[in-house]
């Protein structure tokens, strides 16, 4: 009967199953070279749900009696109370928007990814 060492040697010498030709390429096509999706499935569902909800709310508001008059009145009231009719507020808003735009335009140096050879 075969002893433990002989069995270990026989197991170690046993060749591995040969994978089918092109397996490497197929794996790479599914992983590294797979086309990048802009949105994931759950994100598409979430966007569709939010869009549907927003449409329903718009329809609800628009279908109310005297909707146009009420929206115009609410908008006027909002502008008057939020200070948007004041020149000072508008100037501060313009300064804020301008600063934000310039910050967005700034490009900060990014760290270069390490190369395989370097490691």
């Amino acid at each position, binding site marked *: 009967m075969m002893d433990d060492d002989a069995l270990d040697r026989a197991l170690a010498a046993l060749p591995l199953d040969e994978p*089918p030709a092109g*397996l490497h390429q197929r794996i790479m096509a599914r*992983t590294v070279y797979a086309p990048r999706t802009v949105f994931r499935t759950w994100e598409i569902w979430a966007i569709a749900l939010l869009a549907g909800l927003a449409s329903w709310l718009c329809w609800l508001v628009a279908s109310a009696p005297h909707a146009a008059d009420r929206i115009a009145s609410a908008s006027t009231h909002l502008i008057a109370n939020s200070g948007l009719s004041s020149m000072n507020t508008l100037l501060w808003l313009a300064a804020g928007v301008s600063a934000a735009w310039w910050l967005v335009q700034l490009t900060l140096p990014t760290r270069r*990814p390490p190369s395989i050879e370097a490691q």
Partner: protein
Amino acid sequence: MLALAVEPPPVATEAPVDDQALIVAALAGHGDAFGELVGRYQRAVYHLAARTLHDAAEAEDATQEAFFKAYRALHSFRPGAKFSTWIFTICYRLCCDRIAKRKRISGDELPDRADPGAGPELLAERNDEALRLRAAIDALPEKYRTVITLYHLQGKQYEEIATVLNLPLGTVKTHLFRAKEQLRKALST
């Protein structure tokens, strides 16, 4: 004087990059680093899937799926862990899912897809030691076969085998002992 324009043989200067460095590079966007990992382990992963599932087409699907899952979850790979253990664990779980699916489809207990011709009569006819050993492994019950397959792939790293199979270390050692016992019996006939 005759000058022979013989180019010197290429000198192997590049040291093999370890798995950890390849993972870091793959995470940094180097697709070729992940390709290198695939190249290193695809054969072993396919072997594990083929030995577990006993179906070449399913084994190929499981191998692809395992690398796909590994690629998607590469950022969660624990530094210091072994990539081989990780990818084997993913592959083994996928194989278990497939076996469970087979059982659900086929009804109650599934007959193990062992090599149908691996009976003792046929074993005796097979002279080649490797073929006989392969047939004997195929004839083992599923739990022993998987342990022996991982022992074949991982060597005497019992903790790694226990991690892949999610079994206590003692159980792995017991399974391995019984598997070897059955193999010795099968090979001595």
